[in-house]
């Protein structure tokens, strides 16, 4: 019997949906082994079709996108109810992703329209057609529903998608599984690491990096050392630092803080000592926009709790 598959997007760019095509003709094998019960990007099943399904009748559900609206939250709750295994697919569902950087600021609607704004329906007689309210924070999937497994990446690399389907379609899906390497990206990065010290922090456009050497050694903030492997180090190979889309390695904890610690540890301005402090600070100041740089995908999962504390204090004070 073919496995029943659902794919759903919440606050998503669509890249995750398109990423399945990266399997190329291999997608045909996958499609031949599944029955798609719900996948808005691909088939015309509607919400009512989903609501009619019995609980736990979908074998595997993949959700991509950040949770941004009330509707998103309702839909994933509905999918959770209908699914045996539900997984976060892609960095947004896994970690919050790039759009979750919005959590750094205050409410989006408020930022644009000011306080008190409510969306309105096109006709007063159809209040149900009001655009859905936004959640106060952009959330990763596991903040709203239990998540059984993760296919990480922005979007997930073809190799990991294939690995996922292999496991899923052979019934080998394990709870808590993350379809990426346990070891950091550096494991698969061909760049040569020599003298590990950073004497300046450079932004990618400020330097044409040596094609052979480690980007971190060349002063670029590369999240490779804290990020799971599994993408074949595609960005460092292309001359750009890793920005961490596959998420932190199992024991890294907060990847931004882990990398921050590593980065600060590597900074050297000549001899270490009090005389070097000002120059060290100057080097460290080269890390502009630390939130956007270090928490590019993981802000919702790791940076948000502190941000929430701060925001609550701001509210209390106001």
């Amino acid at each position: 019997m073919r496995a029943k598959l659902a794919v759903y997007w919440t606050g998503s760019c669509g890249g995750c949906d398109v990423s399945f095509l990266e399997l190329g003709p291999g997608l045909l094998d996958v499609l031949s082994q599944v029955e798609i019960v719900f996948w808005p990007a691909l088939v015309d099943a509607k919400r009512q079709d989903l609501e009619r399904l019995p609980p736990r009748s979908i074998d595997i559900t993949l959700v991509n996108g950040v949770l941004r609206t009330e509707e998103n939250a309702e839909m994933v709750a509905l999918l959770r109810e209908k699914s045996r295994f539900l997984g976060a697919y892609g960095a947004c569902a896994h970690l919050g992703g790039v759009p979750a950087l919005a959590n750094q600021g205050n409410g989006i609607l408020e930022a644009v329209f000011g306080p008190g704004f409510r969306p309105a329906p096109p006709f007063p007689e159809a209040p149900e057609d009001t655009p859905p309210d936004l959640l106060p924070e952009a959330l990763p999937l596991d903040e709203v529903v239990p998540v059984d497994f993760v296919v990480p990446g922005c979007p997930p690399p073809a190799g990991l998608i294939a690995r996922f389907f292999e496991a899923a379609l052979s019934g080998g899906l394990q709870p808590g599984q993350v379809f990426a390497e346990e070891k950091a990206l550096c494991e698969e990065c061909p760049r040569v690491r020599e003298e590990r010290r950073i004497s300046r922090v450079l932004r990618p456009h400020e330097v044409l990096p040596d094609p052979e050497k480690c980007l971190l050694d060349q002063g670029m903030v590369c999240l490779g050392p804290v990020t799971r492997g599994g993408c074949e180090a595609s960005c460092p190979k292309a001359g750009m630092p890793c920005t961490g889309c596959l998420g932190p390695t199992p024991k890294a904890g907060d990847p931004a803080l882990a990398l921050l610690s590593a980065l600060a540890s590597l900074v050297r301005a000549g001899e270490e000592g009090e005389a070097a402090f000002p120059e060290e600070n100057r080097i460290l100041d080269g890390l502009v926009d630390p939130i956007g740089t270090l928490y590019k995908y993981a802000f919702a999962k790791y940076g948000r709790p502190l941000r929430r504390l701060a925001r609550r204090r701001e509210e209390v004070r106001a």
Partner: protein
Amino acid sequence: MSEFEPKVVAFLCRWCASAGADLAGTSRLPYPPNAIPIRVNCSGRVEPQWVVEALKAGADGVLIGGCHPGDCHYVAGNYKTRRRVYLLRKVLAELGIESERVRLEWISATEGARFAQVMAEFVAALKRLGPLHGNGGAR
């Protein structure tokens, strides 16, 4: 309502800051009891994540006590910590957390009085800042 008593976690290097705290004790120099001291071998062992986890778990401030520059028992651990804290404070500020809530102090084994004074100052500064967990929410 009683006055706000800040909760502090203090990571103290065993050779300098913790020894300085011991000296404050031996010298019977009182200071506010708000801090929970946690002794580590070197301030270089302290991870930024510990600091953040402490803040998330209910601390209003975190103190890291290490050796004075040039005095690190392990040569340069304190320099690493200094740089980590420098960046960490930057990140905290961007998150809207007052960077004063995280303090790095050089306290030698002979500076018992300084330890007591740092504690008193820090607690006073945190009182001015107010609670990080204002409406009771811990996590």
